[in-house]
């Protein structure tokens, strides 16, 4: 019963958290660019407006896919906090991301398609890390669920420094920040126009945004797993990491897909893989 309550809590709180985070992000970004920036609640206004706007589909299958994207994103988080096996969570997470790729790709217009293919590449780039991260967390705590990791006396972050470093890098992909925002970004001026959202309008775009909020909250949940001795500390660590991402977003240009794939894989192998290796060799 309590587990179901946590799941429900995630479904309700996560978008609020994600939306506020996005709003704060825009203000901080604006300040870094010597601007004032929009109000904190701007992301909510935007999504509200998108729901009021006309939605035009290129392909009837787009809408269920995008709905599925939101639902699966929410379900991933809900499953995680309600005690589903963490490695299985990463598989569901990948499925949720894949649905966005399919929604964009099924529009089959040049920019959406290129955006979808690029998103597939960043999915390919980021997924090994998440599996490795979860495997490592499970290994050090000898637990398999969110609750069990939090209850574990092992302080995960101290044992997984390599994973922490790689997390910062791979989270850039999931948060759609420069230099890894190759498939779409929150800034207009890029070679792929709006990338995979190029042909989405109205509520379709709102779904993407909503799912992104869930995704941010989910990543925050991952951070809590890494800083498992205190939930506030985990959230705090995530906010610090997010601030770092915003800074990086502002001081780098967008990378090319080849570099994204290569560098993420190398980081995953070197830092996450190295860390896992150390765990297996030195560990219990």
């Amino acid at each position, binding site marked *: 019963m309590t587990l179901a309550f946590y799941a429900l809590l995630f479904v309700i709180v996560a978008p609020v958290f994600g939306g506020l985070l996005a709003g704060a992000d*825009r203000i901080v970004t*604006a300040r870094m*660019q*010597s*601007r*004032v*920036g*929009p*109000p904190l609640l*701007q992301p909510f*206004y*935007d999504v*509200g*407006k998108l729901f*009021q*706007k*006309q*939605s*035009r589909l290129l392909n009837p299958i787009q809408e269920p896919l995008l709905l599925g994207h939101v639902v699966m994103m929410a379900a991933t988080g809900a499953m995680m906090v309600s005690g589903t096996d963490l490695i299985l969570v990463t598989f569901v997470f990948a499925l949720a991301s894949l649905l966005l790729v399919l929604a964009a790709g099924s529009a089959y217009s040049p920019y959406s398609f290129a955006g979808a293919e690029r998103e597939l590449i960043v999915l390919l780039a980021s997924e090994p890390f998440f599996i490795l991260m979860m495997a490592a967390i499970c290994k050090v705590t000898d637990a398999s669920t969110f609750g069990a990791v939090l209850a574990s006396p092992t302080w995960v972050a101290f044992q997984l420094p390599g994973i922490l470093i790689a997390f910062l890098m791979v989270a850039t992909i999931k948060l759609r920040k420069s230099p890894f925002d190759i498939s779409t970004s929150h800034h*207009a*001026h890029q070679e792929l*126009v*709006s990338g995979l*959202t*190029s*042909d*989405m*309008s*109205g509520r379709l*775009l709102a779904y993407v945004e909503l799912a992104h909020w869930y995704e941010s909250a989910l990543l925050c949940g991952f951070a809590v797993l890494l800083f498992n001795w205190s939930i506030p500390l985990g959230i705090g660590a995530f906010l610090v990491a997010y601030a770092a991402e915003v800074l990086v977003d502002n001081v780098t240009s967008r990378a090319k897909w080849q570099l994204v794939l290569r560098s993420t894989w190398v980081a995953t192998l070197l830092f996450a893989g190295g860390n896992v290796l150390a765990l297996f060799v030195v560990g219990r």
Partner: protein
Amino acid sequence: MSFFSKSPWIFHYDASSCNGCDIEVLACLTPFYDLERFGIVNTGNPKHADILLITGSVNERNIEIVQNLYRQMPDPKVVVAVGACACSGGIFARAYNIQGGVDKVVPVDVYVPGCAARPESIIDGVVQGIAALEQKRKKTA
């Protein structure tokens, strides 16, 4: 209550402007004027946009483009003609390839004068565009 007044997303197309007004539209986004204060985002994509800013007058070749972009914007939508050329053809009205103002091709809701239009007047034009957007929404709702 509608969210349109809090989140009008703009989209800019250069019909056949001399660049002057285009640059001023872009300047509106930059620190001196910072349109994002009002929740305005330059989307670069008609499918995301609420307000279409057109600079320059239309010529034979871009009539089709302007119409396509306008059609691809989801409702409700507003067109703001920025600068003398977009309003009437401006100084180029006498050139052989110029058809005249943008309103010959798509319905224009707000006219922003000037050669080149100043950022202040462009911002004012967008704000008037928001009012038009609200009205259109009421009509369709």
